[in-house]
């Protein structure tokens, strides 16, 4: 009983303990805020990665694609042991290439990742549909030119025709040095034009639509006067580009002219700045690869009975068994993005380790302050021992005291941490107003707001860690107090 009574009294009267509480509070609050923001970033990144990738991806290193027809491959997967978990199999062709287009008189060439998709199936396996800007969340996106794209395209064609019309020749009134002319009769009347044979009308080929990554089609710059980030389209809807890649069966370049019908904005710079999507048959035709594909995107059923993560790994393994070692590789989307996801996890772990040092410092402050308190309280310890308090009891006073400081510090830290996390964008805006500096550059991350995600398990872990540090830090001074002999303590002045 006396342990609790004295702990509470010390907590209320020893203002030095306030330093311990503040140290613990700062440590806990910082860890909660950093973990929440890191988790928010990580989740956002994973969501985006997951959005552009399927659950399981099967790919071949053969540049010509799988030997089998994609329908047969899909059938093979559907009839395998993994088939019961599989919802959709979408075939794709993914190759590297270049895109060339004109912008303000400049000829621009950029490396691209060219992906041929079946829009009807692709929307089922990933977030393809939700990242399209003009056809966002359309049930089956189309590569056909929209009226807007068509109008712009026709305008471009007319402009091009105008620019390529032959230059008008001057009328010659005397023979030139080659002996041609004069184009005038002797009386000065121009000769009638030579009649041209009638040619059949050339039907222009039907433009083929493509979807271009948002960053590939735009560039950002800081406005010299306002200092604001400004975005300008280098490729407008309806603009024509030339795409070049390699043929499927032989090392020779193939190219074609395509029209931009939509933008793709996943907010993943790697995708938005490199990816160009086109209709699967178009890319197959371009690369002369018949109906073959290089990738299969596998979507699992949402109601996997044994848990999504478990099933996903097993499905990848089962699918791998269907393909020879060199024929194809099956991997989950996490395996595909393993290095990036690992980097985030490592970054978070290192940050946690570094920030936990704040709690470590709090621990040392408890150690130092408790050593002082024990020295200050030696006579009281003697009194308690003369009244029958045991060594364990005396030790308990200081350990419980540290525990109580930990509870108060952790509670305050958790409240502060959650408060800051919930209002981090408002706090950032306030600091921006105060300093005039933007702490969180939206143009870097494409996020409108700083993403946060409070994980209860992490909050619990941080609190437990801080409590353990607080309690362990008190052990040495508490043990020193407990070891004092009553008379030694009573005589201490």
């Amino acid at each position, binding site marked *: *009983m006396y342990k609790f*009574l004295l702990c509470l009294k*010390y907590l209320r009267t020893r203002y030095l303990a306030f330093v311990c509480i503040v140290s613990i509070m700062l440590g806990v609050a910082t860890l909660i805020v950093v973990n929440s923001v890191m988790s928010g970033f990580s989740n956002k990144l994973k969501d985006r990665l997951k959005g552009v990738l399927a659950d399981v991806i099967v790919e071949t290193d053969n540049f010509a694609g799988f030997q089998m027809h994609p329908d047969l491959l899909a059938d093979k997967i559907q009839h395998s042991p993994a088939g019961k978990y599989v919802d959709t199999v979408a075939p794709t062709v993914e190759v590297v290439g270049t895109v060339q287009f004109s912008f303000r008189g400049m000829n621009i060439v950029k490396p691209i990742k060219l992906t041929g998709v079946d829009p009807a199936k692709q929307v089922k396996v990933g977030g393809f549909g939700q990242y399209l800007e003009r056809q966002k969340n359309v049930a089956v996106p189309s590569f056909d030119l929209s009226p807007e794209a068509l109008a712009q395209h026709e305008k471009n064609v007319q402009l091009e025709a105008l620019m390529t019309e032959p230059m008008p020749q001057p009328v010659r009134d005397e023979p030139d040095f080659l002996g041609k002319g004069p184009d005038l009769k002797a009386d000065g009347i121009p000769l009638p034009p030579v009649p041209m044979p009638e040619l059949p009308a050339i039907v222009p080929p039907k433009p083929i639509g493509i979807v271009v990554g948002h960053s590939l089609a735009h560039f950002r710059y800081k406005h010299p006067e306002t200092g604001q980030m400004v975005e300008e389209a280098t490729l407008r809807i309806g603009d024509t580009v030339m795409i070049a890649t390699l043929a499927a069966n032989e090392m020779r370049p193939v190219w074609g002219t395509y029209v931009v019908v939509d933008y793709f904005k996943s907010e993943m710079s790697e995708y938005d700045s490199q990816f160009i999507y086109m209709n699967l048959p178009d890319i197959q035709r371009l690369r002369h690869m018949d109906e073959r594909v290089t990738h299969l995107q596998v979507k699992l059923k949402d109601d996997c009975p044994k848990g999504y993560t478990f099933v996903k790994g097993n499905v990848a393994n089962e699918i791998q068994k269907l393909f020879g070692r060199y024929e194809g590789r099956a991997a989950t989307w996490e395996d595909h993005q393993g290095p990036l996801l690992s980097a985030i996890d490592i970054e978070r772990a290192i940050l946690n380790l570094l920030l936990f040092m704040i709690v470590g410092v709090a621990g040392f402050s408890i150690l130092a302050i408790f050593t002082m308190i024990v020295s200050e309280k030696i006579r009281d310890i003697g009194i308690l021992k*003369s*009244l*029958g*308090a045991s060594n364990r*009891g005396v030790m308990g006073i200081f350990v419980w005291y540290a525990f109580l400081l930990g509870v108060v510090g952790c509670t305050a830290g958790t409240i502060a941490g959650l408060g800051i996390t919930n209002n981090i964008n408002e706090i950032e805006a306030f600091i921006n107003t105060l300093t005039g500096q933007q702490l969180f550059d939206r143009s870097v991350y494409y996020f409108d707001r700083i993403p946060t995600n409070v994980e209860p398990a992490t909050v619990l872990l941080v609190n437990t860690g801080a409590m353990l540090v607080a309690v362990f830090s008190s052990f040495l001074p508490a043990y020193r107090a407990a070891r004092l002999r009553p*008379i030694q303590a009573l005589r201490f002045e």
Partner: protein
Amino acid sequence: MLTAENLTKTYRRNVDVVKVLNGVSFTVRDGEFVSIVGASGSGKSTLLHLLGTLDSPDSGVISLDGKRVDNLPKRDQDMIRNRTFGYVFQFYHLLPELSAYDNILMPAYISNSLLGWWKTRKEWRKRADELIERVGLSHRKKHKPRELSGGEMQRTAIARALLQRPRVLLADEPTGNLDAEKGNEILGLLHDLNRTDGVTIVMVTHNLEMAGTTDRVVRLSGGRVVEEKGPAFRPRLMPAAV
């Protein structure tokens, strides 16, 4: 009956060896009020601390009703200090963070767990109220030690020492820090407790006048009992409940 036989105690500080007690033997009977006197450094306080198990002798035996208490395990000695002995010190030794009332209740706080206290709190509070009234501090129960006078602090310390109804009250110069008037008040209180409640008291003092009022005076010199004198022991029926 509290008995000390051949007690020796030596303090060492670096190379200096000071033999404080050198074979002290004496007995305190139940209900007796004994005072120990002697010059400074004669070992009075050391003897009192040994009797109350606050310190352990180098050799010799201390027994209470024939049972040795000097070699008991620490846990049992803690219990004896809590329930069998009551201590009153020259410098009061009250806990500064607690009120006079909580200081008086401290032995009960120590002997009870949280649950135990909850179950018995009413009895303990009743007992503390009786004692605080007995020492005349009912109006000061909520005051912190720093708000009390020396005499009031010592009376609080006496009430605390009596809370567990101890067999023996050990008082180490209880009036040493008080003026004559307050000192006499405290002495009167101790006599009253001894006479009316039958509390056995061992008091260390260097005030021979005060010592003369007790049942027996034991004089220490050079670490030995050199003289024991006093009126004949007045036996009591039993150490009545205080």
